[in-house]
């Protein structure tokens, strides 16, 4: 027996291939959407991995520092160092902002890292692709290569200028913005710093306040002004553990003694994936559903048209004794063939276009397999309407009136 489906496809291959390519681009978009989600999860994990921390100590009852804002005093880390199991504790700040270089600016996450020996302080970039780590206490920066900055570039962050001394790769925030590392003190200032006019205004207000400007208490005004122009807060303290200590136990003791909120790596991942990108994930999920419905509609429509065009032939085939099964098989095979063409085109399109997307697109084999299964199921379901139509064709129609 010859394959009726493949003969029909070869006979009308133009229509078939063009529909297949159209469907393929749709499937490509679907795969990229799934890749965007995977990329977001992977960005989140990279963020946690690259921080080098075992525990995140944040402001009490917040989901900080990535999902909510968090503020802890910058001397908190000293108290943590004394606890059993804590190897290192380092302050860190995060501030997402536009970093300027000359006339252009780049959206980046500015990370303030504690001075110290490279590789020993959590929060430092674990490795560089070029240049060196920050060695001076001020005005040096390490930037991710995705910012487009190069070594030697001068950046402006608020009112200060920084020189790029090192470059990293895939150091990104959970929303995919590249990171720029600067010394902690500078970062604290950047978070807090106001323009000259605002400083002057606030100084004048303080001076005009009789409670703070007491002629009888010399030095009070100066102390108040000094406290107003420094920022003693950081967003979190990153903690590494001594070998052999369970993260949960150390986290418990920090919670008990320091009255702070502490997250382990696993909890942090839950927050990033389950809360921070959950809305985006649902958004992408909605798009995937819509794309699946549109793909199904396209396959159903084209297979239906192809079947409608063949009603007479189907009646003749039935009249001369073709089994219903053979006719249903023909339609089903055409739908599946369309799905196969579409999937191959889609996979190729997704693979080649992924690097050009501004956000990280991670195509994982599991999604490819799931996508393939979904395409096949959609094609089979989409062909059912046409199969039903074909099976209801009366062989008597071939004889006519």
């Amino acid at each position, binding site marked *: *027996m*010859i394959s*009726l489906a493949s*003969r*029909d496809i*070869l*006979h*009308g291959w133009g229509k078939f291939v063009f529909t297949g390519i159209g469907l393929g681009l749709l499937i490509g978009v679907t795969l990229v959407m799934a890749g965007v989600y995977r990329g977001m999860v992977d960005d989140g994990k990279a963020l946690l991995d690259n921080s080098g921390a075992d525990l995140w100590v944040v402001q009490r009852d917040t989901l900080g520092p990535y999902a909510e804002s968090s503020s802890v005093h910058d001397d908190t880390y000293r108290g943590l160092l004394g606890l059993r199991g804590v190897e290192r504790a380092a302050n860190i700040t995060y501030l997402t902002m536009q970093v300027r270089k000359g006339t252009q600016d780049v959206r980046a996450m500015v990370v303030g890292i504690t001075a110290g020996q490279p590789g020993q302080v959590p929060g430092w970039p674990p490795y560089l692709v070029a240049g060196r780590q920050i060695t001076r206490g001020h005005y040096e920066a390490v930037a991710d290569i995705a910012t487009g900055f190069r070594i030697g570039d001068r950046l402006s962050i608020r009112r200060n200028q920084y020189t790029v001394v090192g470059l990293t790769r895939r150091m990104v925030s959970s929303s995919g913005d590249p990171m720029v590392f600067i010394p902690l003190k500078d970062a604290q200032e950047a978070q807090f710093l106001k323009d000259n006019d605002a400083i002057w205004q606030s100084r004048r207000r303080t001076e005009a306040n009789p409670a703070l400007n007491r002629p009888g208490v010399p030095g009070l005004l100066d102390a108040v002004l000094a406290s107003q122009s420094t920022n003693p807060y950081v967003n979190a303290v990153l903690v590494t553990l001594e070998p052999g200590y369970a993260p949960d136990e150390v986290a418990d003791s920090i919670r008990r003694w320091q009255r702070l909120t502490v997250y382990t790596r696993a909890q942090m991942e839950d927050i990033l994936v389950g809360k921070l990108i959950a809305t985006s994930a649902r958004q992408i999920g909605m798009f995937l559903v819509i794309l699946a419905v549109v793909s199904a509609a396209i396959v159903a429509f084209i297979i239906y048209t192809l079947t409608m065009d063949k009603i*007479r*032939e189907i009646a*003749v*085939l*039935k*009249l*001369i*004794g*073709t*089994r219903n099964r*053979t006719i249903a098989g023909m339609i089903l095979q055409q739908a599946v063939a369309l799905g196969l063409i579409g999937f191959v085109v889609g996979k190729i399109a997704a693979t080649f276009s992924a690097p050009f997307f501004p956000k990280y697109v991670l195509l994982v084999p599991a999604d490819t397999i799931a996508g393939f299964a979904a395409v096949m199921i959609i094609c089979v379901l989409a062909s059912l309407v046409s199969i039903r139509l074909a099976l209801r064709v*009366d*062989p*008597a129609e*071939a*004889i*006519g*009136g």
Partner: protein
Amino acid sequence: MSIHAGRGIRIEGLVKRYGHGDTAVDALKGVNMHVAPGEVVGLIGPSGSGKSTLLKCLGAVIDPTAGRMTLGDESIFDNGWKVRDLRALRRDKIGFVFQAPYLIPFLNVTDNVALLPMLAGIPNAAARAQALALLTALDIQHRAEAMPSQLSGGEQQRVAIARGLVNRPPVILADEPTAPLDSARAMAVVRILNDMASQFQTAIIVVTHDEKIIPTFKRIYHIRDGVTHEEAGEGRSLSA
């Protein structure tokens, strides 16, 4: 003819009623007909007289309401009782030739004809050989590889006839097979049907309006208001 009297196709008192109650239409009101193996008969009647209905009953695509039909020695319908596998009956016992050729557009000429034996389970090579032999008999073997759309109307009709004949069915039902053809082509088709009838001992029923070919039948059934009348035809010679 008498030696085949018990064979060929025979119908007795065939009734076909469409619909029920007040709206019921009796398209056939007790038709009697017998076509012997090797015989070609004409079926003639005005529009609405029941020709298509009769052909559909004979072709086992609709069920008669009452009466009897036998094919060879086999009863295929008997007052409500019918053969179980009508599909296989159509495939193996009945050849169809239509007014329009209705070839399968995505199969070439050979495979259009070979499809029937293939459907009956004959291996592709053997089925194609069978098809080619018949295409040769119909003098169209030179178009064996062509697609239907590349053939003229007359060539398509010959391929359709080959398809109707390929399983060597004991009965062929032809519905206005010459309607789209010019006079010479029409006569050629009638000649082919007659040749095939005598060569393979096929009983052939030709429904037609075609004044050109009516004189060629030796026997004609006139149908009017669902009743047939048998009549001798001119049986004019077919030699070109």
